[in-house]
């Protein structure tokens, strides 16, 4: 199993730059709290988020993206591997020891209205983080109003209950709540799910503006590639709990190397009835995590699959001109024409 790291560096002296770290064993999270049999919901995943950066985890349902988020904030324990935050290994910390780190990581959950308690007013919801972390010196009323102002909601919203909010407003309250403790990392799980296209833009613009002002890092989890395009610096595409392609967002959009990424990009094209329909139809469905395919796990749906794909698990490769762009495929796509020249590529040391 490939080893991995998850690291968020924020040291002021280090100017927010993160180095690739030596391997520290794989991050293997559980899908359930039950004993055996385990499902490897996430396996061998390694990545880092740099200070002030936006990283996207993209994949379809069941690919393990939310599991990673839940593991980072400690809602689930990893079976193996490490998670370090600002130089501190946090996976092995328990309860109270973890709390000061959790204060610096905020999570926005998937369902904007469902993630807010229906019995609490917006004021209580926004100031709950202060109570949990024992910050009694803050004035609850003025803090709640300050947070609402930051996300562009009127101050009289403090008296509202979640059912009195629209989807977009509830999402803004979720963002305000995530900002309450001035975090260094915000994890946004499907920030635009269930929102209309006109509101979707507003929420993403708000996150981008707040990031410019406050400089936190953002981990966006989504299945919609169009959402991440304008918002993120780097992206990782997941399939069956593994990263199959990682690289800068711009580069992957221009030049996807993995056939699954290609199909995902083609699945949501420009709405134009006259456009040449190059939507790529993948065969079949995502295989069960209990019965992972042999060799390359994507071969059952891949239109380029050959004999070797059934047998050999592909090692990560990097682009010759951009070592940050890596992918797991025996026959990576090469621009317009698909070339199958292995000489163009060389294996990299680090896991993706």
């Amino acid at each position: 199993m490939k080893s991995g790291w998850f690291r968020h560096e924020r040291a002021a002296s280090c100017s927010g730059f993160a180095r690739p770290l030596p391997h520290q064993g794989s991050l293997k999270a559980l899908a359930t709290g039950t004993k055996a049999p385990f499902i490897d919901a996430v396996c061998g995943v390694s990545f880092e988020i740099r200070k002030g950066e936006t990283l996207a985890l993209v994949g379809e349902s069941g690919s393990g993206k939310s599991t990673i988020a839940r593991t980072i904030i400690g809602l689930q324990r990893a079976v193996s591997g490490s998670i370090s935050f600002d130089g501190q290994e946090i996976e092995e910390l328990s309860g109270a020891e973890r709390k000061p780190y959790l204060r610096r990581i905020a999570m926005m959950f998937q369902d904007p209205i469902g993630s807010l308690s229906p019995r609490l007013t917006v004021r209580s919801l926004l100031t709950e983080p202060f109570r949990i972390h024992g910050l009694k010196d803050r004035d609850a009323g003025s803090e709640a109003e300050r947070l609402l102002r930051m996300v562009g909601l009127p101050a009289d919203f403090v008296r509202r209950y979640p059912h009195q909010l629209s989807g977009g407003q509830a999402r803004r309250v979720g963002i305000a709540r995530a900002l309450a403790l001035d975090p260094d990392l915000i994890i946004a799980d499907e920030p635009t799910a269930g929102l209309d296209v006109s509101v979707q833009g507003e929420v993403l613009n708000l996150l981008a503006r707040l990031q410019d002002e406050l400089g936190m890092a953002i981990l966006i989890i989504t299945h919609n590639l169009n959402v991440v395009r304008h918002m993120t610096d780097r992206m990782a595409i997941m399939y069956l709990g593994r990263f199959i392609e990682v690289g800068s967002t711009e580069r992957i959009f221009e030049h996807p190397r993995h056939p699954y990424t290609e199909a995902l990009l083609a699945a949501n094209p420009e709405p134009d009835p006259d456009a040449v329909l190059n939507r790529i139809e993948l065969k079949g469905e995502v295989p069960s995590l209990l019965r992972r395919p042999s060799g390359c796990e994507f071969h059952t749906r891949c239109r380029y699959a050959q004999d070797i794909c059934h047998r050999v698990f592909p090692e990560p490769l990097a682009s010759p001109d951009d070592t940050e762009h890596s992918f797991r495929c025996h026959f990576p796509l090469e621009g317009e024409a698909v070339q199958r020249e292995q000489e163009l590529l060389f294996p990299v040391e680090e896991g993706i």
Partner: protein
Amino acid sequence: MRRDDSISHTSARPLLEIRGLGLDFGTPRGRVHALRNVSLDVPAAQVVGIVGESGSGKSTLAYTVMGLLPENADVTAGSILFEGKDLLKMPAQARRSLLGDRLSMIFQDPMTALNPVRTIESQMIDIQHHEQGSRSEKRARALEMLHRVGIPDPQSRIGAYPHHFSGGMRQRVCIAMALLVKPTLLVADEPTTALDATLEVQIIRLLKDLQKEIGCSILFVSHHLGAVAELCDRVAVMYAGEVVEQGAVRDIFHNPAHPYTRALLECDPGRIKKSTRTLPTIPGEVPSLLGSKEGCIFRTRCRHASNRCVLENPVEYRIGVDQVARCHLLDEERLVSA
């Protein structure tokens, strides 16, 4: 050229004609005017898309056609002619016998649309209760349809329960059931919303192929512009309970006339080619549908809104041969050019 009713673009009578439909929901806070003066045609053997954001009334319209409304719904005006007969004036019994016969429906969530305690086989045989024939004939038809919607090995799968299937497979079973009764009109309420992107491509392709093969009409409700552009022949754009623009799919996507249609198309992130940090949005919120409505419904969010939009309800203006939109700007443009 002004016109008050919707277009009849084909010489033959459309399969479904909705005329001036109004529908209210009674709530403790008052009446919500969920549909106002909706007129729409579904020609025979065509796919008509209804696009709009949440709360625009697109699903309500679909459920009104099917007659599956909750008790607090009240149709206040208009008619729904299906094959020349008004569904709203039909006796309940006659209307119900159309369902699962001439009219059938695919629902949004394939996880809850099937009965969890009965096998696919018994559900697929039951839905053919209007048809003649023995149980084994009906089973054979079900098997053939499962094969056509791409369920591998239908012989062994037909005895399975819904929980044995994944989401995409269940939606295929729902499509198979809806088409098994050979409907003339299939109402599909966001059939791909609950599915992943790569499965959506499969389902859209499947619907397109089967529609050509069977020759039925489809009323396709969706908020996904890409799916509508790919599948539909005609499109109606709904906003806050009104159809603001409708026409052939090419005209709507290439030459949108209503400011809302334009804004909606601009907002689709799939259309933005250049890398940008700021995405386009439609400022403001959908207005409350309580109380009486005067003037243009989109005026609070429209950048071209004028005094006339507050005072006067826009009628439908025709653009080109086969496109109408409700916007005062179109009237003014005409005056300038004339």
